[in-house]
C-alpha cells in the first residue's frame, strides 16, 4: 500500500515536470489561435529558445539573462510569423512549419559554430540553472504521513518555472475572459471585421497575440535547457510543441481544461516511462510506444468528434484584408 503510494507520488512528480513546457506552449497556442493565427510553430520557438537560453546562460553565467534572451528570441520568431501571416497574409501553417524547420537548422548550425560540440551546448552547473525551490517547514511537514511526501515531492521541490507555468494558466484565463484585451482577442479570432469597424486595429491585436505566444514559448524553451535540463541538446523539444498543440485542442482553446489536458498528457508519458518492462495483470506489458502515441491518438479521436466537439475560433487561418 505504502509502496503504491510512493509510486503515485513519484508519478505525479514527474507528470508535473513533463507537463510544464506543455503548459507554457499550450497557453501560447491559446493566445495565438484565439486571435485567429494558427500556431504550429510552437515546437520551433521552444527549440530556438531552449538553445538561446542555454547558450546565453553559458556565456554570461546568469540564468536570468538566459531566460530573458530566450523570451526575446522566441518573441522575435513570432514577429517573423506575424510578418508572414499578418502583414503579408501568407499561409499560417506554412509559416509555422518554416519556423520549425528553421529552428532545427539554425540551432544546430549556430550551436556547432559556437561550441563545436556537434550542436550541443556545454552543460551548465547548478548555479547556472533554475534549481528546485524547497518550501518552508519541509522537515516539519515531512513527518506527517502521506501528506508529507505529497508536500515535499509534488507541491514543493520544483524550480521556479514550474510554478510560473501554473501562474501562466490563471493569468491566461483572466486575460482572455475577464479583460477588454481578451474581449478584443476573442473577437479578432471570431470576426475580425467586427473588431476593425469597432475602431481597433486587427493587425495590432494579432501581433500582440502572437508576440505573447512567442514569449510564453520562450519560457518553455528555457525550462527545457536551463531548469529541467542542464544544457541544450539537438532537437531537444522532441515534438513537445505538437503535444502542446494537441493539448490546446483537447482543452478546446480554454486555459483551464487545457491545463488538465497538459497534465493528462504529461501523466501518460510519466506512466509510459514507469511501465516500461513491467508486466501488468491480464494486459501484459504495455508498449512504451503506445503510451507515447496516446496523446496523438486521443486528439485524433477528439477532433473526429467522438468525444465532444472541439470548435476552433471562427476566423482561424484566414488572413484579414479590408480591401477586396
Amino acid at each position: 500500500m505504502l509502496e503504491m503510494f510512493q509510486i503515485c507520488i513519484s508519478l505525479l512528480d514527474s507528470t508535473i515536470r513533463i507537463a510544464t513546457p506543455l503548459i507554457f506552449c499550450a497557453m501560447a497556442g491559446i493566445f495565438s489561435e484565439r486571435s485567429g493565427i494558427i500556431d504550429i510553430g510552437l515546437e520551433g520557438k521552444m527549440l530556438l529558445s531552449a538553445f538561446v537560453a542555454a547558450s546565453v546562460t553559458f556565456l554570461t553565467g546568469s540564468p536570468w539573462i538566459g531566460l530573458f534572451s530566450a523570451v526575446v528570441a522566441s518573441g522575435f520568431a513570432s514577429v517573423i510569423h506575424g510578418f508572414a501571416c499578418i502583414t503579408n497574409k501568407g499561409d499560417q501553417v506554412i509559416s509555422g512549419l518554416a519556423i520549425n524547420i528553421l529552428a532545427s537548422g539554425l540551432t544546430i548550425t549556430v550551436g556547432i559554430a559556437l561550441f563545436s560540440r556537434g550542436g550541443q551546448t556545454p552543460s551548465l552547473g547548478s548555479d547556472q540553472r533554475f534549481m528546485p525551490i524547497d518550501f518552508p517547514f519541509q522537515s516539519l511537514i515531512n513527518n506527517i504521513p502521506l501528506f508529507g511526501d505529497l508536500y515535499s515531492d509534488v507541491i514543493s521541490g520544483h524550480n521556479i518555472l514550474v510554478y510560473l507555468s501554473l501562474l501562466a494558466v490563471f493569468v491566461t484565463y483572466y486575460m482572455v475572459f475577464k479583460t477588454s484585451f481578451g474581449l478584443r482577442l476573442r473577437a479578432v479570432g471570431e470576426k475580425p471585421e467586427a473588431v476593425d469597424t469597432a475602431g481597433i486595429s486587427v493587425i495590432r491585436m494579432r501581433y500582440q497575440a502572437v508576440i505573447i505566444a512567442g514569449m510564453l514559448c520562450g519560457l518553455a524553451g528555457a525550462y527545457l535547457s536551463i531548469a529541467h535540463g542542464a544544457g541544450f541538446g539537438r532537437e531537444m523539444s522532441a515534438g513537445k510543441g505538437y503535444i502542446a498543440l494537441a493539448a490546446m485542442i483537447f482543452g478546446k482553446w480554454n486555459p483551464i481544461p487545457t491545463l488538465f489536458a497538459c497534465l493528462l498528457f504529461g501523466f501518460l508519458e510519466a506512466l509510459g516511462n514507469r511501465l516500461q518492462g513491467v508486466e501488468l495483470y491480464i494486459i501484459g506489458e504495455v508498449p512504451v510506444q503506445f503510451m507515447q502515441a496516446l496523446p496523438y491518438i486521443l486528439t485524433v479521436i477528439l477532433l473526429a468528434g467522438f468525444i465532444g466537439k472541439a470548435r476552433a475560433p471562427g476566423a482561424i487561418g484566414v488572413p484579414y484584408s479590408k480591401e477586396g
Partner: protein
Amino acid sequence: MNESNFLPRWVSIGLIPFINLLLAFFVSGIVIFFIGENPLQAILVMIKGAFYYPGSIGYTLYYTTNFIFAGLAVALAFHAKLFNIGGEGQAYVGGLGVGLVCLALDQSINSFLVTILAVCGSAIFGAFWGVIPGYLQAKRGSHIVITTIMFNFIAASLMVYLLVNVIIEPGQMSPETRDFSEGVGLVQIHKLANYFGISIAVSPFNISFFIALIVSFGFWILVWRTKFGYEVRSLGHSETAAKYAGIDVSRTIVLVMAISGGLAGLVAINELLGVHNKLLLGFTAGYGFTGIAVALMGRNHPIGIFLSSLLFGALYQGGTELDFEFSSITREMVLLIQGLIILFSGALAYMMNPFVEKIYYNYFKEPKNA
C-alpha cells in the same frame, strides 16, 4: 491564393518565385557570414559536392527521387486545398508495406514479382495512412493539418514498436529487419550500366528515379486532363461551386488523400528497394517534410516539382560535402536553407508582388483603366 491579376504569367510564375528563392539563399548567406565562413565558398563546395565529384550526380538524383514523390504527394492535396503535412508518416508506413511484402514473399516467389508487389505495397500502405485523415476530414470535419501531424507521430511510434518488438531480425540489436533476398529490389543505375559494360561511379541512384518521372507525367494527366482532376481542382478553388457542380466532395477528398498518401508511400521504394534492401528505423529522414517545400516552390506543377526536387537533391548532396570542407558548418545548414525556402517561397510568396508590380508598371507598361 492571391496571385496577382496585374502581372504577366512569366513574372508571376517565373520571376517572383525566383526572387523569393534568391532571398532565401541570401539570408542563408548572411548566417554563414556571421558564423565566420565565406558564403560564396560554401556555395562552391555545395555545387561541387552535388555535381562535380564522381558519383555525386548519382547521389543528387537519388535524393531528387525522394523529393519528387514527396512533392507530388503534397501538391495533389494542395490542388484540392488540403494541406497534407503527413507525407513523412505516409512514407514511413509505405515502407512497412514494402517490408511486409518482401519479408513474406521473397523466399517463396519470383523476386521480380516480389519487387512489383512491394512497390504496390508501398503505395497501398501509404494510401492507407493518408486515407484515414482524409476520411476524418471529409466525414467528421477534423482539420486535416492537425490530423496528419498527429498521424506522423503515431506512425513513428508504430514503426518503432514493430521494428523493435516484432519484425526485427532475430538476434540483432539495431532495430531493422533482415535483408531482403538477393534479386529483390530496384536496380541501381551503376550496376545496370556495368551490365552493359559502361563504368560509372557507384551511387544509390536507381530506377525509382524513372518511376518518379513516369508518375510525374501521370500526375499531370490526372490533374489537368481527367474528369477527376477537373473535380479536384474545382473543389480546391471553391467547395460551394463543387457542390453545385454535383461533385461528391467527401468522396473526392478521400480519394485525393488516398492518392496523395500513395505517392508519399513511394518514397519507400527508392529508399528500401533501391538502397537499403531492408526496412529500418527512420529511413524517411524528413523527406516527407521537404516535400512541402518542394511542392510550394514547384507551384504544385510536375515540372516545377521536378526542378525544385533537383534543387533540393543538390542541396542535400552538396550539404554532406560541407561536413568535410568546413569545421563550423555542416549539412544541417541545408535544414536552415530549407526552412528559409519554405518561409520565402511559401509563407511570404506574395511579399514581393506589390513591389514588382510597381516596378513593372512604372518602367514597362502603363496600367489599364479598367
